[in-house]
């Protein structure tokens, strides 16, 4: 019979263990999220990330060993990004009807998200690489990670910042808009998709169907705009 530590040593090296752990952590995160009535602070990705990170730290497993298993999940981000064409196409009538307000809000919201983040980051004395990794954080994770790789940021740091952006956005969006007396669900949803990508979109869908549809459009359009503007902004400002 093989001793348990030997089995662990064997399994910890291959992709099977960490692929399974990634999926399992997400299943647990999602169950907790449902138990908390889908409250934005009980975000399943955040819970899964904390669970897997804790497991890596406890077992002393290096990230690259973990990633050999998790890369199969990570790879799917590319095809998932391409697939965003489907909801965008499904909403083409909405897009055509409110095209001008959306384009204006897209440019204004997207620029605000990038420029204010860089300005506050500079004031707080953040490192150059940290600022570059921060710049694309308002767009959907697969795109933000791709941009971060392109402009010399740390893709994994960007991924964490994207996640934090989505969660904070989902938490502040409803109280903020209610306090400001904003009643146009299209505007509320669209701005949420632009500023807080998929996590914000999921939150908008919970609150109002129109807001959800427009959030999806905002997220999709900002994926395109952020990918175009961030490399230029990073070159000019950083």
């Amino acid at each position, binding site marked *: 019979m093989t001793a348990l530590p030997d089995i662990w040593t064997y399994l910890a090296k291959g992709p099977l263990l960490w692929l399974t752990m990634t999926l399992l952590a997400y299943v647990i995160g999602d169950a907790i999220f449902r138990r908390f009535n889908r409250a934005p602070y009980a975000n399943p990705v955040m819970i899964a990330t904390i669970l897997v990170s804790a497991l890596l730290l406890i077992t002393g497993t290096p990230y690259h060993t973990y*990633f050999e298993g998790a890369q199969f999940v990570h790879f799917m981000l590319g095809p998932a990004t391409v697939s965003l064409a489907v909801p965008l*196409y499904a909403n083409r009538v909405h897009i055509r009807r409110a095209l001008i307000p959306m384009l204006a*809000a897209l440019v204004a919201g997207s620029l605000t998200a990038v420029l204010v983040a860089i300005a506050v980051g500079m004031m707080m004395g*953040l490192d150059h690489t940290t600022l570059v990794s921060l710049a694309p*954080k308002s767009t959907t994770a697969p795109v933000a990670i791709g941009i971060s790789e392109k402009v010399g940021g740390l893709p994994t740091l960007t991924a964490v910042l994207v996640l934090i952006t989505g969660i*904070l956005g989902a938490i502040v969006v409803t109280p903020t808009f209610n306090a400001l007396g*904003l009643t*146009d669900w299209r*505007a509320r949803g669209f701005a949420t998709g632009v500023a807080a990508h998929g996590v914000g979109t999921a939150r908008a869908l919970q609150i109002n169907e129109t807001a959800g549809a427009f959030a999806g459009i905002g997220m999709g359009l900002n994926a395109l705009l952020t990918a175009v503007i961030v490399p230029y902004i990073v070159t000019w400002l950083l």
Partner: protein
Amino acid sequence: MILNIVIILGFQLAGETLVRGLGLSLPGPVLGLAGLFVTFLLFPAVARMVSSTAQGLLAHLSMLFVPAGVGVVQHLSIMESEGLGLLLAVLASTTLALIVGAFTFVGVARLTEGPKEAKQ
């Protein structure tokens, strides 16, 4: 099903190839997204075909962020030294982007649609 995967991966591959070939600064999959969207507009039959596969992929979208998110274990020292600055930058920029985006939408909608429609 397999054909749909070929179409999605094919657009990603075309996007990556164009980005590398032309030295563009946007991620390949984003160009693939744009290409697939234009293809849908030109050939609606492709949209009907691909949509179920794409929606299956998007249904579990948030799970796909976990491996990259776990990368935080590589940046614990950054989080320790710059975590507060990052948190403030994210919170301020996200809240302001929400407000600026929503009010721009409402303002421009009022100008282009007239006050009645903008209220719906």
